[in-house]
């Protein structure tokens, strides 16, 4: 008892008591649903009745059905494109705010950039449907200016619309981390590089960019993780070609009355997203390391070779091993490679 009171009175103990109510709340409300979903994924449902016998039939079905695989791959593809578009467009803006805006104006710029983010997500997505529509402002303006004769049809109810809308919705999430890491760069380093004879472009490539990489990486993570599981955007602007895994999860749980299948898909989606991101980060570290030690061509060759190997595995695997074994084997091999890279390859200059 005495030891306990002393522990509670100490600096760390005080902090712990103060933080525990929200921590417990967050843990309960995150862990309980997560545990329920994992539990559900091992059950089956027969119309309204839930069969509580433990089975992995859901996983076998989810991994072998080509529809689920296509939706999952499409979600990953969309998320990758959204991340690329968002981060590439956000970087110049963050650079501009950090390097070219007067210090007393910076907070105003940041505030302006975050305002749209705080308004209703639903309304913004719906308005993109209006903007990109057959007779919407984009087509109207382009026809009015005489650039096109017929309305563009490839910008609504397909994957492009989903990418445009998500890239817009997640813009502040990309700008802010990049801005923070750019702000942290010691300006005297840039001066030193210029004084030592580096050109402006080379200073940017060899000093600014590597130092900003942690922010870029944070932006990539913040944008790519939620976009894989987005529900509203594909539903409103995606049409049938832009349907994503979250829509399937929803359909399983509510429309098809198959909660265990929905839970299985959710668990698989979480696992696949996590492993894919780990793959991306570890390979980035590996390729940068190769580029530094063996030159750019070695890195490029390694990257292309691995991607080709993954494609071949995906194409040939199902016929030889069966679909579930292919997916699981690929994930296991890729993750083994990631772990090896994290253990063996040291952190590079870019801090990855």
């Amino acid at each position, binding site marked *: 008892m005495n030891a306990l009171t002393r522990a509670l009175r100490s600096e760390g103990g005080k902090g712990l008591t103060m933080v525990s109510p929200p921590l417990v709340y967050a843990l309960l409300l995150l862990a309980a649903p997560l545990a329920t979903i994992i539990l559900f994924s091992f059950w089956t449902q027969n119309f309204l009745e839930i069969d509580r016998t433990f089975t992995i039939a859901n996983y076998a079905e989810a991994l072998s059905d080509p529809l689920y695989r296509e939706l999952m791959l499409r979600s990953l593809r969309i998320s990758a494109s959204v991340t690329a578009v968002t981060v590439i467009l956000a970087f110049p803006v963050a650079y501009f705010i950090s390097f*070219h805006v007067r210090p007393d104006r*910076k907070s105003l710029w940041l505030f302006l950039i975050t305002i749209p983010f705080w308004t209703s997500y*639903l309304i913004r997505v719906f308005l993109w449907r209006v903007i990109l529509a057959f007779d919407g402002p984009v087509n109207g303006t382009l026809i009015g200016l005489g650039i096109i004769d017929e309305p563009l049809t490839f910008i609504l109810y397909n994957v492009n619309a989903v990418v445009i809308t998500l890239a*817009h919705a997640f813009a502040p999430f990309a700008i802010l981390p990049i801005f923070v890491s750019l702000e942290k760069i010691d300006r005297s380093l840039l001066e030193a590089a210029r004084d030592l004879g580096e050109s402006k472009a080379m200073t940017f490539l060899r000093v600014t960019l590597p130092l900003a990489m942690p922010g870029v990486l944070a932006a990539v993570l913040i944008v790519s993780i939620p976009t894989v599981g987005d529900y509203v955007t594909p539903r409103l602007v995606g049409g049938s070609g832009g349907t994503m895994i979250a829509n399937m999860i929803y359909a399983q749980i509510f429309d098809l009355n198959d909660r265990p299948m929905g839970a299985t898909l959710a668990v698989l989606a979480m696992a696949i997203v996590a492993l894919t991101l780990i793959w991306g980060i570890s390979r980035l570290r590996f390729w940068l390391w190769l580029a530094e030690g063996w030159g750019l061509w070695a890195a490029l060759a390694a990257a292309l070779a691995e991607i080709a190997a993954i494609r071949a595995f995906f194409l040939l695997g199902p016929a030889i091993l069966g679909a579930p074994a292919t997916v699981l084997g690929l994930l296991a091999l890729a993750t083994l490679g990631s772990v090896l890279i994290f253990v063996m390859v040291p952190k590079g200059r870019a801090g990855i």
Partner: protein
Amino acid sequence: MKARPLTLFALLYLFVLYAPILLLPLFAFNDGTVIAFPLQGFTLGMVRPPAGDAGAAFGHAQFADHRGERLAPGDLPRPFRGARGNALPVSGQGGDHGFHHAAAGPAGGDRCDLASGRADAAGPRKRLWSIILGHTLLCIPFSIAILQGSFSNMDQSLEEAADRPRRDAVLDLPAVTLPLVAPGIVASLLICFTISLDEFIIAFFLSGNAPTLPVYLWGQLRFPARLPMIMALGTILVVLSILLLIVAETFRRRGLRRAGVKDSGGFL
């Protein structure tokens, strides 16, 4: 400002970022049900009916929340009463609602109709609680981020100075610490309110037959004839959010000024 192309790019970026929000009021004051350029007419004549409906819808949402009981079909606002424009026959059996609404909507299995009709053993009150729990979870990180900012900007020596005679941090809280971080608290309260007001996914999954405003809007997106109302309601929602934000930002800056620190950015 130097670097002209970069400035131009940033301004263009900002414009695209605001494009949907800028178009919203434009469409809300448009008198056509088809939203398209060129706008059919730019009169204020259509503002009143949608605004009136919007008020009704907002009231409905609150009504549904506070009554704590299942809605009877007669209580539903117009869009719920079916495309034929007249009220659905009062069935008297709660379990039938879903079927009637699904059959009445233009699209067979409309989501909002299902939501309002899903006969759930747990009443709306319980549903409301689950939404509140979910939104609280969502708001905690934002709140922590904002409060953390105002705590870290607070001059620690002030608290220490107050601490000296009594050696009791608990007594300092209302007298010294709270007034110093009060703007941060107000800012995070407003931000949490905004987040919960606009949040859709959690409310959509949990609301059952007591829809919140975004869930109600989601159900209305299916009806082309309701577009002006959606736009008007959306405008109200967006304007409310921006107003709350500006007030929150003012409080946050006041807090920073009080702490005597230079402002270093927005909320996130």
